[in-house]
């Protein structure tokens, strides 16, 4: 897929909960085709402590209005700076990067998101729904403060929630959710995004099942386009770049999973 470097204008920004920011960005050019699971490398403006671009998933795309949105957890200097942007500020994106999710042949789909890794799931649910799929969606988090936009997800599928402190939905870790009850588990495909520990736990949980598990990885990146080889993950066929061959992988291919 052809990649672009475009300037976007911040048209809306809000700070849901205490450490997230959601940005709506208007592209200065017509948006190119973007697939769910793809990401952008963002140039962080005016921040002396940040040198490299930062990879952030495309959270949703609104082709009619030529906008995209980002869902960012504030974890360091770069993401903090993103949370400080004001409406009308400009942001430079290198995108769309990576392979994104492949659509399956059947409709027994579960999307699982944990913590901030949830970012690409909204666009995935949105895309699946546009193609007449009916995914179920499970979002897990530490507490209610970290779960946002539930109304958005509900547009595209049944939404299940779980929090570690029980403040929203069931109580426990994602893999404790009743959806994973052995005798009732009905999904053929699971798409999961979130912290690596959670992804591994989900994958372990489904080892005995006839289910394919796809995960979106978040290795640190320098270039985002396959040039630097920083972002590799060990697969059954050797080191492969998360930026160009991922970020989405079938866990069958991942060595040591």
């Amino acid at each position, binding site marked *: 897929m*052809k*990649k*672009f*470097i475009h300037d976007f204008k911040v048209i809306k920004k809000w700070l849901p909960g205490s450490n997230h920011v959601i940005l709506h960005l208007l592209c200065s050019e017509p948006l190119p085709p973007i697939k769910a699971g793809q990401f952008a490398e963002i*140039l962080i403006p005016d921040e002396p*402590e*940040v*040198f*490299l*671009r930062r990879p952030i998933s495309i959270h949703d795309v609104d082709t009619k209005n030529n906008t995209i949105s980002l869902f960012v957890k504030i974890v360091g200097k770069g993401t903090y700076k993103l949370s400080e942007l004001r409406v009308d500020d400009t942001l430079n994106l*290198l995108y769309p990067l990576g392979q994104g999710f492949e659509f399956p042949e059947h409709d027994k789909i579960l999307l699982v998101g944990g913590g901030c890794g949830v970012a690409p799931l909204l666009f995935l649910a949105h895309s699946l729904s546009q193609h007449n799929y009916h995914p179920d969606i499970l979002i897990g988090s530490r507490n209610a403060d970290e779960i946002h936009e539930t109304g958005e997800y509900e547009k595209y599928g049944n939404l299940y929630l779980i929090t570690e402190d029980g403040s929203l939905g069931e109580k426990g870790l994602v893999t404790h959710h009743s959806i994973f009850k052995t005798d009732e588990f009905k999904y053929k495909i699971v798409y999961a995004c979130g912290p690596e520990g959670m992804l591994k736990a989900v994958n372990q949980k489904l080892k005995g099942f006839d289910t394919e598990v796809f995960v979106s990885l978040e*290795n*640190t*990146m*320098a*270039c*985002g*386009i*396959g*040039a*630097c*080889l*920083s*972002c*590799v*993950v*060990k697969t059954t066929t*050797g*080191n492969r770049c998360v930026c*160009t061959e991922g970020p989405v992988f079938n866990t069958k291919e991942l060595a040591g999973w």
Partner: protein
Amino acid sequence: MKDLSVKLHSLELRNPVMTASGTFGYGWEYEDFVDLSKLGGIVVKATTGSHREGNPYPRMAETPHGMLNAIGLQNKGVDYFIKAIYPAISDFPTNVIVNVSGSTVEEYESVAEKINELEKIPAIELNISCPNVKEGGMAFGTSCASAQAVTRAVRKVYKKTLIVKLSPNVTSIVEIAKGVEDEGADSISLINTLLGMAIDVEKRKPVLSTITGGLSGPAIKPVALRMVWQVSQEVKIPVIGIGGISNASDAISFLLAGASAIQVGTANFIDPSVTMKIVAGIEDYLERHRIDSVKDLVGALDVS
């Protein structure tokens, strides 16, 4: 129209702007952003005798105005390169130069010998300066005797333009530059990365799986510029300047310091189209300063 062409021994470049090995892939990664026909040349990834997986992840750390890498020469080996990659890149409308690496003199020699057969590859860059492999690599570049030994062996089998890429992690870069010149190098490129380290204090662990790695980017530019200046005073063969170059003004600094051409590395990651801006910026500089040929900038630093 200004004359931007330069020559490195028998290698003709349409302009002095090349891309640095390991930062530009095989070139196709950048095709959406760079018109390859407007580049002086591209130096593709390190190629070794056989397949290498490189070092474990994490291999990269951000530092103030720079980055550390510990890729460790991941590549599929020279035979795969010849069979699967060369056909795809041999018709690129620019000079394609292969960065040759190894762990033993024999490995360098055998890779160079094989690349020598590739008609469309006009030059190799001998990487005796990679800090990211346990055996060989940088070790060759940090002693004059071993730098000379590799150069000598490769010179015997490689008939086209032979560029030797030096390590900055040495007491006297000039001594090593002269050493490889004596062994028949046609050009010298410098610098490769400075050996550095980063620590995650919250985890109390090194950021890189290899503990140390190679520092690149604007942070190293002053050191690179100094070494280019020192070396170009003392050797007769053309020098290629590398290290932190991020814009036309940086590139011109290196030309003034004595480099006949330059390579852009880490800056490609921040702006994949940066090389195009550098070419345009050099042309603009020549216009503004009423200089006809970029060759007139080479070594034109006024130290009076």
